[in-house]
């Protein structure tokens, strides 16, 4: 057993877990944060993506112990209180989700993509960078649209100025 402590969605948590506890199981089962999903066992689907110290990671592919001392943000912590993150709002507006199972991972990956590229994002880049996230429902069409729309909105001033 090992004691892990980290900040999750701004809250300090500390628990004793099995050495082999995956970060995703720690979040889902020990903390009850079931918004982060498990869609595969080979690190391929991205349903489990969370932000670790500001970077998108697959929480099924690291141990809880490896996240000791880190700051983790999950889908539950993305909105600012009642105010949705622009990407959450864009997923709704552009119908970027159907069954919703891939959605938390898609949004966390999308937010990371936007953070790294800002308003320079284009469709080809979004599609390429979503390589680690699988959606079986949407055909990605509206996911890509939602990410581009949110990127435009979040860095919209810059982009319009440049045009």
């Amino acid at each position: 057993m090992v004691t892990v402590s980290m900040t999750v969605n701004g809250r300090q948590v500390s628990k004793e877990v099995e050495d082999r506890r995956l970060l995703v199981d720690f979040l889902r089962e020990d903390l009850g944060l079931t918004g982060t999903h498990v869609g595969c066992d080979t690190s391929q689907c991205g349903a489990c993506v969370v932000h670790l110290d500001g970077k998108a990671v697959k929480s099924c592919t690291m141990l809880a112990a490896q996240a000791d001392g880190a700051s983790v943000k999950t889908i539950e912590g993305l909105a600012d209180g009642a105010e949705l993150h622009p990407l959450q709002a864009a997923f709704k507006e552009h119908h970027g989700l159907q069954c919703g199972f891939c959605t938390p991972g898609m949004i966390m990956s999308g937010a990371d993509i936007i953070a790294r590229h800002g308003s320079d994002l284009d469709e080809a880049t979004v599609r390429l960078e979503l390589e680690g996230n699988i959606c079986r429902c949407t055909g990605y069409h509206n996911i890509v649209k939602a990410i581009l729309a949110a990127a435009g909105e979040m860095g919209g001033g810059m982009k319009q100025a440049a045009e």
Partner: protein
Amino acid sequence: MSVEGIGARVARKEDKRFITGQGRYVDDMSVPGMKHAAFVRSPHAHARVGAINAEAARAMPGVVAVLTGAEMAADGIGNLICGWMIHSKDGSPMNMGAWPALASETVRFVGQAVAVVIAETKSQARDAAEAVEVEWEELPAVSDVLGAIAEGAPQIHPEAPGNLIYDWEIGTKDEVEKAFGEAAHVTRMDLTNNRLIPNAMEPRAALARYDAADDHFTLWTTSQNPHTARLVLSAFYNVAPEHKLRVVAPDVGGGFGSKIYIYPEEITCLWAAKKTGVPVKWTGDRSEAFLTDAHGRDHVTVAEMAFDANNRITAFKIDTIANFGAYMSLFSSAVPTYLYATLLSGQYDIPLIHCNVRAVYTNTAPVDAYRGAGRPEATFVVERMMETAARELSVSPAELRRTNFIREFPHQTPVIMLYDAGDYEASLNAALEASDYAGFAARKAEAQRRGRLRGIGISCYIEACGIAPSKAVGSLGAGVGLWESAEVRVNPVGTIEVLTGSHSHGQGHETTFAQLVASRLGVPLDNIAIVHGDTDSVQFGMGTYGSRSGAVGMSAISRAIDKVEAKAKKIAAHLLEASEGDIEIADGEVRVAGTDKKLGWHEVCLAAYTGHNLPDGMEPGLKEGAFYDPANFTFPAGAYVCEVEIDPETGHTDIVQFVAADDFGRIINPMIVEGQVHGGIAQGIGQALLEGCVYDEGGQLITATYNDYAMPRAHDLPSFRVSTTETICPSNPLGIKGCGEAGAIGSPPAVINAITDAIGNNDLSMPATPEKVWRALHAAGGGLREAAE
């Protein structure tokens, strides 16, 4: 069109919980005292199950119980069933082998469960499952259909000699043969429809609880049809009587057919919950999903089409062998018969058709309906044939289709279906225009200058949805009726709950169904709740598959609304001292037409519940139900155009344009409909380019992870250009045809027609991987040279 009613692009009501991580999927749930299940599965494709030694496992930390198939059989748990009886052409019933939820004697595919471990935690259960020792006696196995029907093949079930489940036919063989004798041209093709693994992103899961005091079970499960699950679990598996079993399908993360069926794991969890006295949860991992979810497609077909001198089709004959895997899954028998052969007329006026289907056991996972179910296989056959015939006859593929389109409705095909409405030329024209088909030659020439091979392919599909008149399916062998139920419950304050037997696992029912109610009763969307997926709330229902929730599920709601509306009008007429015929309901008001006399909707609702002043003899309350049984199937149809560019050096295919023009009848929410088409096309392109389930000869699944089974990812796909044409469906009150499967049905032949056009070799099977395309290109003689020139 109102901003919220029928036809409006309303953002989904259900989205909030999914985008904030508040979805409630089965694996998100837990109940006090819950333990975890892990299954002991066969590593062999075919083996006798010998002694099971669980002593070591039982002694491991956290283990509550290890239960085996022998114990399950002793408790009288029934075998899994196939719910659709098919008779062979000699009149004999299909040969169905027994499928116990936990095998105690023989296993017939890799992954079949023989025992279950219940333990405190998931990891403990898995550790202990690994420690269960099973003595296997390996038997010879066969994984492909041709091998399975060959002389001397391993015999899989004693009930099915030669591994043949049925040998079925439809149509008029002698007349077809005669027409072939008189044909001016015959096109012949060998076609394989590749086996697919559905891969809904949420793996299957089940949580079962037994309350001893009430002798009552609850099952939370990843189901597309919880009522059918309850019926089958109680009537056939003897788990519990229906009134003692509640089945809940909460948020479900995609289904595509794979969550219609009642699988061994749900049965086992229910049984184990009672046996051990603790709630039991099982959540499959992706590897288990690959091994044990019902797979799709897997047909081997020979097709021949006869034409007269005017390029009109005179006859069509098809011989198909369908791989059913090791056991007959719930609807498996209907897929290559009534969902496949009955659609082989496509959009064309074909006077004579004969189709023979042999269903065959192999040592692979069971095969059943997967998005489209039979109709993608039929469309692939028909549309590959049409494109090929056009090439052979040197006419344009669009022209050959036009020559043969059905133009008058209703149209009776020679294979049961009565097409009620359509305009196939309209959707073809729309697709050709949107894709600038006329400008293709210039684009091809431009691509050639860049050293790329460009091709274009058409597919004109038809499907039968809204399954189906209960009487009709009953006469064809279905074990259930295929109506739908609805209940519209108006509360005293005027808000509304709609209880539906349809189930949403991504389709957006909470929004579209509410739009219908909003349109009809003038109530804002926020005041309407859609309740589904719980056998305790909803009286009964047949669930969601076969694109039936709009055409059948919403029709039931519409019928219930008719009754609510009629009663509300009676009450209002009484209160306003007007005649019932003059009352209109709109915008939250109930008015006397042409006057300023009116009541608020909520006032009428309240009056219904106070009962202080109702017409004589009227019961209080405002709640009505309906069971709607469709008059016919519905027939969505459309035209898809795919344009590809091939890199002749690598064989890699880029889809540079994909255009869809679909006729879905009346559309409730265009945004949701487009989303359904996008997703369907992605699955169809996946089938055409990427996805192929591979078993080795001994029945080991080679493609058992996302490393080996290529799922379509964002960069494999283009943005799609989708549009609709509209002919109203005359067979249901809303004019809806259904849209859930079209994309997956229409797209594979469009892609393959485009690639074969580009490479000049028609001999190409799915998935058209770069290697296959490269080989086909070079077999055709020098794509490289041609492109370079």
